[in-house]
């Protein structure tokens, strides 16, 4: 199964004439493992990223400690191309969102001062103490030093509060609340400058880009100090910082968030199943299933520094008792998550065998070969499948004497020319996973009909789900898709003109170095592209 796989157009060329929307993008496979230096690529126009809800929460915890509670209901994140990281460069702040940011800022400021003991080292009676406080807090909240005019504004607001409310704490709270609802906190403002002009990020902007990419939160004091000291400009010093960050526990927070966004795992919060059909369903199943997948990802990335193909092929997972019951395996723990090994003769392998993937991409009463196939195409291979056309009856035909299993009932997708161009790209993948029901339990029969899980994906045959997982792991678009997703996640924007070459280089380097995820993150973080900044679109 290591032979080269052609693009998905194969076999449906005729159909494509009828439905050109289902064309897959071309596949580029590097010819050699000698990857050479990264290409010089022009940076696209910069975008203004707004902190995601998670980033906001992480920043508040980093700034004021874990005791400070962020009020719920902040402006929600939006997805773009399946990623919240991309959506945060599109959505604006609604009027209610602005109100919530304001309320949250005052609430957090009050908690920080009154409970977490945030305050100046000096006495507020002393001349200049409030200014000192604004300067030291401001530098952290805004992730850069403040200029004199900015400090003037903060100090005068603090003084106004003090005289209006006759309470010295109110001046501190007002300064903090102002910092926290400012765009310099809520957005990742990048204007460039630094030693190399507007086409490069300043050291502080680079520090933020690094920390949000690697940690999904703000820079720590050491990183900010390195930026102040100009120590992010030299390649060796930068590499040392990146290596330090990747070995910091916060890197797990960053990697987990990427996997959750990439694999749509946050949607598991909304997982519902018909309890009459699926006895193993419980309201907490969705979040448990997400944790399982994230634990597997963490284990492969950090503990094993594994080849990322293993994410799809490993027989090891970490399951709670409820999940273990679905896997029909003895749980290794009473509480929490413990390792279990899928048997060699089982066709359950890696992420495609997880409850997270199998239950999320299924209906409330049944599995869904179409949704599973769609997920593999869109999320794992970065292929584009258009939405079903309007005025098409999308109901799955009811059970009949000639069509009892879901696969038999979906035969119309394969035969009707208005359905087949797209469904031929999706359903056969899902048929390979039909041994797993709508919550991911293994089964041999579907409505009494023996399941035939064989098929082929883009010309590569498989006999069962284990071979399908291997085919996808070896599919050249899998590595490329992972790299592309991580690249857009890191930059917060779509690929610019010419950036495909950068992705090609990263793919080649990723493959040459054994497809290690941390290595890929490191390559990206150290690339010149990562700190370059295009011209602002008019």
């Amino acid at each position: 199964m290591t032979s080269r796989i052609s693009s998905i157009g194969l076999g449906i060329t005729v159909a494509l004439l009828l439905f050109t929307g289902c064309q897959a993008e071309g596949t580029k496979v590097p010819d050699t493992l000698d990857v050479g230096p990264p290409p010089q690529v022009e940076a696209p126009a910069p975008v203004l990223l707004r902190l995601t809800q998670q980033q906001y929460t992480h920043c508040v915890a980093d700034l004021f400690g874990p005791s400070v509670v962020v009020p719920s209901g902040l402006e929600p994140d939006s997805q773009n191309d399946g990623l919240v990281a991309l959506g945060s460069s599109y959505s604006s702040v609604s009027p209610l969102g602005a109100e919530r940011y304001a309320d949250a800022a005052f609430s957090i400021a009050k908690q920080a001062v009154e409970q977490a003991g945030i305050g100046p080292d000096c006495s507020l009676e002393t001349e200049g103490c409030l200014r000192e406080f604004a300067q030291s807090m401001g530098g952290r909240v805004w992730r850069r030093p403040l200029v004199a005019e900015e400090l003037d504004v903060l100090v005068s607001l603090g003084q106004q509060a003090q005289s209006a409310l006759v309470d010295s704490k109110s001046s501190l709270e007002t300064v903090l609340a102002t910092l926290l609802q400012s765009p310099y906190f809520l957005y990742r403002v990048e204007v460039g400058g630094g030693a190399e002009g507007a086409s490069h990020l300043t050291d502080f902007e680079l520090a933020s880009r690094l920390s949000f990419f690697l940690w999904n939160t703000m820079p720590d004091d050491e990183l900010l100090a390195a930026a102040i000291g100009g120590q992010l400009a030299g390649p060796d010093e930068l590499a040392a910082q990146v290596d330090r960050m990747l070995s910091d526990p916060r890197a797990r927070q960053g990697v987990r968030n990427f996997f959750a966004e990439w694999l749509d795992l946050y949607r598991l919060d909304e997982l519902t199943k018909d309890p009459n059909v699926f006895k193993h369903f419980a309201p907490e199943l969705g979040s448990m299933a997400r944790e399982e997948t994230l634990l597997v990802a963490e284990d492969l990335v950090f503990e094993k520094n594994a080849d990322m193909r293993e994410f799809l092929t490993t027989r090891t997972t970490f399951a709670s008792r409820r999940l273990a019951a679905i896997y029909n395996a003895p749980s290794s723990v009473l509480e929490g998550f413990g390792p279990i090994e899928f048997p060699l003769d089982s066709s359950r392998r890696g992420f495609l065998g997880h409850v997270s993937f199998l239950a999320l991409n299924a209906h409330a009463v049944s599995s869904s070969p179409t949704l599973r196939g769609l997920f593999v195409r869109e999320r794992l291979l970065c292929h584009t499948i258009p939405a079903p056309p309007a005025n098409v009856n999308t109901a799955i035909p009811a059970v009949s004497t000639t069509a009892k299993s879901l696969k038999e009932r979906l035969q119309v997708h394969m035969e009707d020319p208005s359905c087949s161009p797209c469904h031929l790209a999706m359903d056969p993948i899902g048929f390979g996973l039909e041994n797993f029901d709508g919550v991911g339990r293994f089964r041999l029969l579907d409505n009494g009909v023996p399941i035939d899980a064989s098929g082929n994906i883009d010309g590569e045959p498989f006999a069962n789900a284990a071979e399908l997982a291997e085919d996808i792991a070896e599919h050249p678009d899998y590595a490329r898709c992972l790299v592309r997703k991580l690249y857009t996640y890191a930059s917060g924007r779509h690929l610019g003109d010419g950036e495909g070459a950068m992705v090609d280089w990263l793919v080649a380097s990723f493959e040459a170095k054994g497809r290690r995820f941390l290595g890929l993150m490191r390559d990206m973080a150290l690339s010149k592209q990562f700190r370059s900044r295009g011209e602002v679109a008019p």
Partner: protein
Amino acid sequence: MKFQRRTLLKGFLGGALVTVGLPPLELFMNTHGTAYAEGAGGFPQRFGLFFWGNGMNPDRWVPQGEGADWSLSEQLAPLAGVKDMVTVVSGMRVLVPNIEPHHATACGILTGRPLVMKDGEHTFPGPTIDQTIASAIGDETLYRSLEFGAEAGAGMSFNGPYSQNLPEQSPIALFERLFGPAFQAPGEEGVVDPSLGVKRSVLDAILGDLGRVKASVGAADKARLEQHMEGIRGLEKRLAKLQGNPPDLAACAYPPTPAAAYPDMEGRPQVREKNRAMCDIVALALACDQTRVFSNVLTRPLNNILFEGATAGHHNLTHDEPEPQPEVHAITLQCIEELAYQLESLRSVQEGDGNLLEHSLVFATSDVSNGKLHSSDEFPIILAGSAGGKIKTGHHVRTVANDNASKVLFSIAKAFGMNLGEFGEAEGRVTESLTAIEV
């Protein structure tokens, strides 16, 4: 002075309609009656959108009979108690290209314009009808518009591309926002919060920061920041109004305090309870003239909510349940019952010789007509209230087949005094309104 309306508003659909007896009028006389320019009897016009997800079934929806002589259909039966205040329009089609099921038609019916597809994602090209109306009548109130909904998700209220007005989904949060400590009922002794001035100064500083960031970014980001600034200006305006005197309105009163939480019951959200609590709050927010425009998104397009009595999520059922889809039908009825509740809650608030519903216009619709087929013809369109005598009530208006649904939006804008000349864009554009519903 406080008086609880809990006893007045409960139990509309449980049996006989409660007739609301307001205390003697002179106690509550509106001393600023002349402040209102529009609407019958000197009361302001209000606009509301009521939206539910995943459509209906045209075969069970379109009423029998036309004009003033008509009877409610099976799916409209819950509106029996307010039929005289309702006009149903049938036969219309959303003509914008149906390129993305649910979203394209939702965009068409709410903006009259085609959905924008960019970078594989979609957004609405311009303001939804509630925001169009808010631009005409939203400036005088504390809130330009109010967005809420039991299961509203991100809501259906757009200012423009990628700019949505976030809805309130928690009754208690909605209550706190509208009737929390900052609210003063007519006649209450007010103490102006001394922190309001400081908060206004903070907002000034934030506007300054936003302006500086705006100067350094590209056009798309400038537009996003402008939206953010618009929100901050709204907050500033509200703080300024709170520092002044509250409006003195006869019907203004505290709504009942909702429950602290409405947790899902075995995976089923309490759609009905949440909606009713919020409808009660919003009726009185309108009576207190805190806003004149609302958007109630009961459920969102594509929602997969496990409704009471259903075996699977709503969206799944629309596609998976065999005909005649009894469960989907039951869910549609539940949605229309909630519309009925909203209309009843407005009607229960007396204003002068009339009531709040008469002074309002509620436009009720969904994202598709037949959810199973994602169809755009026979679109569900209900109008209720008369916008103070501008729109006919108690009619079934059957248009020529596939008449452009944007005509209704044009009529709505006209009813609120907007002189637009045309409405919508591309396939959705119309140059005439639906005169059959206009007075």
